[in-house]
């Protein structure tokens, strides 16, 4: 077990294993998302209040969930990299940021499209929208800090600290925004998802959920492979691989 983890920590092994796993993840994500899209768009019944407009939920909710999940993965990878000085963990953290920012942007975009349909406005200062926006700023700050350093190792460790500070702050920011919001906004518009959801509507959502999670895995593996290649560009194992081509 430990040996296996140690092997995973070495860039050539990780590169190889990630390369083997990527197509599996990519294809199963593709199948799940396709099934989710088809069942969500064609088979799920229209909502009794929102009509067909609610169907954007099938993209919005999974990407909002993934935007948070990615941040947590990034922070855990950053902590592992900081504590055990694992090169691959830093590469994982670095690769998480753009993916997470993309998920956050998708969640914000679909949220505002949905809001335009349901509330008649592109943007309201709803608690979820606001904390999602702040999350996007956190991702952008992380990426900006990374790109400000020329030295890879310094960038890794500085941004790892920022990711950890950020992950401690995310709940505080979230609850302060919720608290602020309940004082300022009428509660009528903030209720997005009814807790009772019909099974025929739930199934596509579950499919999309798993699809997005696995898609994240596939994207992450691909990005980490690229990151590993760039960092190890002077290493012997890459030279050997290239000469075998």
């Amino acid at each position, binding site marked *: 077990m430990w040996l296996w983890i140690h092997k995973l920590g070495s860039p050539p092994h990780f590169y190889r294993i990630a390369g083997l796993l990527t197509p599996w993840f990519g294809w199963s994500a593709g199948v799940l998302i396709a099934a989710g899209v088809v069942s969500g768009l064609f088979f799920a019944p229209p909502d009794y209040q929102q009509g067909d407009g609610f169907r954007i939920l099938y993209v919005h909710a999974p990407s909002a969930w993934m935007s948070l999940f990615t941040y947590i993965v990034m922070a855990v990878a950053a902590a592992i990299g900081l504590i055990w000085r694992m090169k691959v963990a830093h590469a994982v953290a670095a690769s998480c940021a753009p993916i997470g920012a993309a998920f956050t942007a998708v969640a914000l975009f679909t949220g505002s499209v949905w809001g335009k349909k349901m509330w008649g406005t592109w943007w309201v200062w709803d608690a979820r929208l606001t904390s999602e926006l702040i999350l996007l700023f956190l991702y952008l700050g992380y990426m900006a800090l990374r790109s*400000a350093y020329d030295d890879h190792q310094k960038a890794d460790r500085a941004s790892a600290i920022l990711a950890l500070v*950020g992950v401690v702050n995310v709940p505080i920011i979230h609850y302060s925004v919720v608290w602020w919001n309940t004082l300022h906004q009428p509660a009528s518009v903030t209720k997005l998802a009814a807790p009772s959801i019909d099974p025929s509507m739930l199934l596509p959502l579950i499919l999309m959920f798993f699809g997005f999670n696995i898609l994240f895995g596939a994207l992450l593996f691909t990005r980490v492979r690229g990151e590993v290649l760039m960092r190890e560009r002077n290493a012997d194992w890459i030279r050997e691989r290239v000469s075998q081509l």
Partner: protein
Amino acid sequence: MIPRTGMMRAATLLIERDLRLAFRRASQLCHPLVFFLVVTTLFPLSLSPQPSQLRDIAPGVLWVAALLSSLLALDALLKSDAEDGTLEQLVLSGQPVVVLVAAKTLAHWLVGGLPLVIISPLAAMSLGVAPDAMLVTAEGLLMGTLTLSFLGSVGAALTIGVRRSSVLLSLLVLPLAMPLLIFGARATDLAMAGEASSGPLYLLGALLAFTATLAPFAAAAAVRIGVE
């Protein structure tokens, strides 16, 4: 190496040194204060000078201006010491870096944050805030600016080795400072409406306690990375 000077002694010495250095360049101390007053002047000019409207925007204006001007000063927290090598010597001194960073942050707040709190009633008055609410605003800013200094010490430490770091520093620190803005402006708002404002003030205090205990550790780790 075991240092002969005690930890607290080292911290007070460092605070003394930073304060002395700051007062040697006394005119620079005024810059954030003037900035604060200028920004609060911009709002009546750009919106409307009607007292009723000014009172509506006053909490937000005061807090945004305070955040921005203390953010501007943050860049100087570690930069000059990092450039002339002092910071390296501090790290090598054998004293716990956490304590040294916290001491530097405290000194920075004494010359940058505290004056802001003291002149905040002046700006509040110009925006038509009632005397009771001025006190609450000053209390809130007292805790808010100190919290921001500690938060900012992490950002400043992370950007030690970065060129043109001030914009990046703001980008890193501002999202983290949003709870401060929410609770601080809320406290002023409640006080101006004549209601009890202790709730948001307690929350500001909680944020201060939380940040002051944890941020120096993150900042110390970042300083170690920055100076190596």
